[in-house]
C-alpha cells in the first residue's frame, strides 16, 4: 500500500498533465459519439424536438438505400480516383526535380521548395474563388485557349455535370501536389546515396535507378500520403459547398457525402438520419484506410 502510494505520488504530475486530453476526449469525442449512436436510432428534428421518437434501424436502412447518398459516394470516388493519381505523379516528378537540384545552389533550393509550398498555405475558399474566375467561360484561361483554337466555344464547366468532378479534381491536385512533393522529398533525402551510385557504376540508367531503387524505398511516405488521401479526400466539403451550395449543383454532380450529410443535418435538421449517414460514411472510410494499408504495407 505504501509503495503504491509512493508510486502514485511520484507520478501524480503525469496524470495531471494528461488529464486535459482525457477530459476533452470525454466531453468532445466520447459523449458526442454516444449521442451519435443514440440519435441514429431516433427520428429527431433539432428545431422540433417534441416530435422525437425511437425508430430502430430505420435511419440505417434508409441510409443504405438512399440513392442520393450513393450518388454522392460515386461522385467522390470518381473525383478521388482522378485527384489521387494526378496529384501523386505530379508530386513524384516535382520531388525528383527538387531532389536533383538539392546538390546545387542553396538559394534556388529553398526558393523552389517555398514556391511549391504556397498552395498548401492558401485556404480552400481563396483557391476556389481564384479558380472560379480563372476557369469562367470568359475568364483568362478559356479566352487564351479560344484564341489559339484549342477551345471552339466557351464552356460553363460548373453547369456541365460531366465536367464538375474532373475540374474539381484538377483544382485539388493544384492545391496538394506541392505538399505531397515535400513529403516525398523528405523520403528521397533518407535514401543512402551509395545505392544509386553503385547502380550508376554498374551502368544502370537514371530511369531504372529511380523506379527500381528509389521508388520502392519511398513506401513509408507513399503509405502516409495514401492514408491521408483516403481519410481527407473522402470527406471533401468546402470545395463543392463553395461552388455548388447545399444541393451539389446540376444533377447533384458535385454532391459529396459530407455535403449531403451537412444538408440533412443543417438544412433539414434531421439529426437522427444525418448521424446514421455519418456512421455509414465513417465505416467506408475506415475500410478504405485498411485497404490502403493492406495493399501498400511491406510484404513479409
Amino acid at each position, binding site marked *: 500500500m505504501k509503495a503504491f502510494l509512493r*508510486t502514485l505520488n511520484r*507520478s*501524480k*504530475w*503525469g496524470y495531471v*498533465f*494528461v488529464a486535459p*486530453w482525457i477530459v*476533452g476526449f470525454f466531453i*468532445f*469525442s466520447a459523449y*458526442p459519439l454516444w*449521442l*451519435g449512436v443514440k440519435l441514429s436510432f431516433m427520428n429527431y428534428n433539432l428545431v422540433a424536438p417534441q416530435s422525437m421518437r425511437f425508430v430502430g434501424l430505420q435511419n440505417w436502412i434508409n441510409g443504405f438505400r438512399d440513392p442520393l447518398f450513393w450518388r454522392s459516394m460515386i461522385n467522390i470516388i470518381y473525383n478521388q480516383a482522378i485527384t489521387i493519381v494526378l496529384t501523386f505523379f505530379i508530386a513524384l516528378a516535382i520531388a525528383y*526535380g*527538387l531532389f536533383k*537540384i538539392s546538390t*546545387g545552389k542553396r538559394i*534556388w533550393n529553398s526558393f*523552389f*521548395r517555398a*514556391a*511549391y*509550398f*504556397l*498552395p498548401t*498555405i492558401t*485556404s480552400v*475558399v*481563396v*483557391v476556389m*474563388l*481564384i479558380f472560379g*474566375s480563372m476557369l*469562367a467561360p*470568359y475568364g*483568362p484561361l478559356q*479566352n*487564351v485557349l479560344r484564341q489559339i483554337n484549342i477551345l471552339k466555344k466557351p464552356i460553363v464547366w460548373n453547369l456541365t455535370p460531366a465536367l464538375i468532378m474532373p475540374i474539381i479534381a484538377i483544382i485539388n491536385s*493544384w492545391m496538394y501536389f506541392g505538399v505531397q512533393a*515535400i*513529403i516525398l522529398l*523528405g523520403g528521397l533525402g533518407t535514401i543512402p546515396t551509395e545505392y544509386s551510385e553503385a547502380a550508376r557504376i554498374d551502368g544502370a540508367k537514371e530511369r531504372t535507378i529511380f523506379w527500381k531503387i528509389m521508388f520502392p524505398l519511398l513506401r*513509408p511516405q507513399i*503509405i*502516409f500520403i495514401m492514408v491521408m488521401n483516403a481519410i481527407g479526400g473522402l*470527406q471533401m*466539403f*468546402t470545395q463543392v*459547398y463553395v461552388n455548388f451550395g447545399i444541393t451539389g449543383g446540376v444533377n447533384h454532380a458535385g454532391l459529396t457525402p459530407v455535403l449531403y*450529410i*451537412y444538408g440533412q*443535418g443543417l438544412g433539414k435538421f434531421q*439529426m437522427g438520419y*444525418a*448521424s446514421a449517414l*455519418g456512421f455509414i*460514411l*465513417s465505416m467506408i*472510410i475506415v475500410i478504405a484506410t485498411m485497404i490502403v494499408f493492406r495493399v501498400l504495407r511491406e510484404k513479409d
Partner: protein
Amino acid sequence: MIKHERIERRRAYIFLSIGLVIVIYPFLLMVMSSFMTATQLLNNPQLIIPVPFTFSGYIGLFKRLDILNLFKNTIIIAGSVTLLNVFFDSLAAFALSKIKFPGRDALFGFMLFTLMIPGVLFFIPTYTMLYHWGWVNHYRALIFPSFVQFYSIFLMKQFMEQIPDELIEAAKIDGASDPRIYASIIIPMSLPVISTIAILIFMGAWNDFFGPLLYLRSPNMWTIQLGLQMFASSIPSSDAQIVWAGEVVITLPILILFLFLQKYFIQAFTNVGFK
C-alpha cells in the same frame, strides 16, 4: 561524373520552372485583379496588367465587408485555439515522453486508436450537443472542442523523447518538481517543435471554413473565410474587385508568417511516413 550531375541538375531546373508557372499564375492573377476596376475585370480578363490601376477593391473591403471585424473574430478564434493547444498539448507530450506513470503506454495506445476515427462522425452529434448548450453563434463553439489535439501531442512527444534523461535526472536531484522541469527544461528545449505545431494549428484555424459555417450565424461573428465566401456569393459583378482584394488580404498574413518561419512549416511535412 560531376559533368553528368550538372546536366541532370539543369534539366531539373527547367522542369521545375515550368511547374512554377502553373503554381504561381493563379496567385499572380489574384494580385493583379485586385488592382483592376470592375469594368476591366468584366471585359478584359485575359489582360494581366491593371489599366487603370485602382485601390477601389481594397477600399471596398472596409466599406462593404467590414474586414477589420472579420479579422478580429478570426484572430480571437485562431489565437485562442493555438495558445490552448500549445499549452495543453505540450503538457501531455511531456507526461507521455518523460514521466513514468502506471497506464501510460495503454493510454498512448488508446490515443493512437482515436486518430483512426474519421472526423465526419463527430460533427452532427457535436453540433446537436453545442446547440443544446446554447454555444451556437459563440466563439467558444470553435475554440473549446479543439483545445487539445492528439496529432500535435504525438509530434511533440516524438521530439521530446530526444531530450536526454540525464538533464531531467540532474534537475530532480536539485529538487525540481515536474512542473518546474516542464517550464525550465522541456519548453525551452522543445521550441522548434512547438513553433511547428503552433503554425500548423494557427494556419488550420485561420483557413477553416467548415467550422465557422457550422457555428457562426450572425455576420458580425463571421471569420474572414466565411465572410469572404458569403460576400462573394452575394455581390453583383460590379464589385468583383473587392472579392479579389479580399483574397489577397486574407492570404497575406499566413504568407508573411510562412516567409519568416518557412523552415518550421516545411519541417512539419518532411519527416512523416508510415512503416
